[in-house]
């Protein structure tokens, strides 16, 4: 999705190397996705669900 819209930035963060980030976002299991510090979910989700999460996060940006 980041490739389709320059306003969207996607980071793949290695949880073990960045413990402070992992703690900040309470990463207990991976993959964990956090969007705009506002929406989060664990595990792989359908394209539709991810889209809705992005839209929801954008709405409160």
């Amino acid at each position: 999705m980041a490739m389709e819209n320059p306003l969207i930035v996607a980071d793949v963060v290695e949880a073990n190397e960045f413990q402070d980030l992992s703690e900040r976002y309470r990463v207990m299991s991976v993959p964990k996705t956090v969007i705009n510090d506002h929406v989060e979910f664990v595990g792989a989700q359908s394209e539709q669900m991810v889209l809705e999460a992005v839209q929801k996060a954008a709405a409160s940006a």
Partner: protein
Amino acid sequence: MTIIADKDRQTIQEMLDTQLAEEVELLLFTRPRSRIYVPGRKECQTCDETRELLEELVGLSDKLSLQTHDLATEPEAAAGFNVTEVPTVLVRAGRKEPDIATHGDQQSAATPPTVRFVGLPGGYEFSTLLADLVDLSKGETGLSEATREAVRAVDRPVHIQVFVTPT
């Protein structure tokens, strides 16, 4: 000692040869190990390995290029790309124009890379990196047309962070 296993090297090279269309640029922000001991300074544990891995990777295809920036000596470049952690690998479809053009007080960047890997892209993440390089190279994402339209309609900044581990 190489990071990409010999048996994988050929497979990856063939994959890149057949899949890559346009050029793709990788930018690595790193911080080399200090030659002297500085108390309290947190060394980047995976910077050297990340740099080696990426150097090996771009060596496998003419369509891949790597730019390396040092976070300590180039803070403006890091700030321009919103990079705060090392190693961070940014990927984008290749551009011929310069990265950052300065117009007086304003800085405009030519399409800042919006797909980034924070930390060594090892294990499963390496496959993700390769897949991203191919997608960027082809300019295709494999998302449905409806999703693409909806994504393009997003008009506020969205920062997606996916926490992963290599295994």
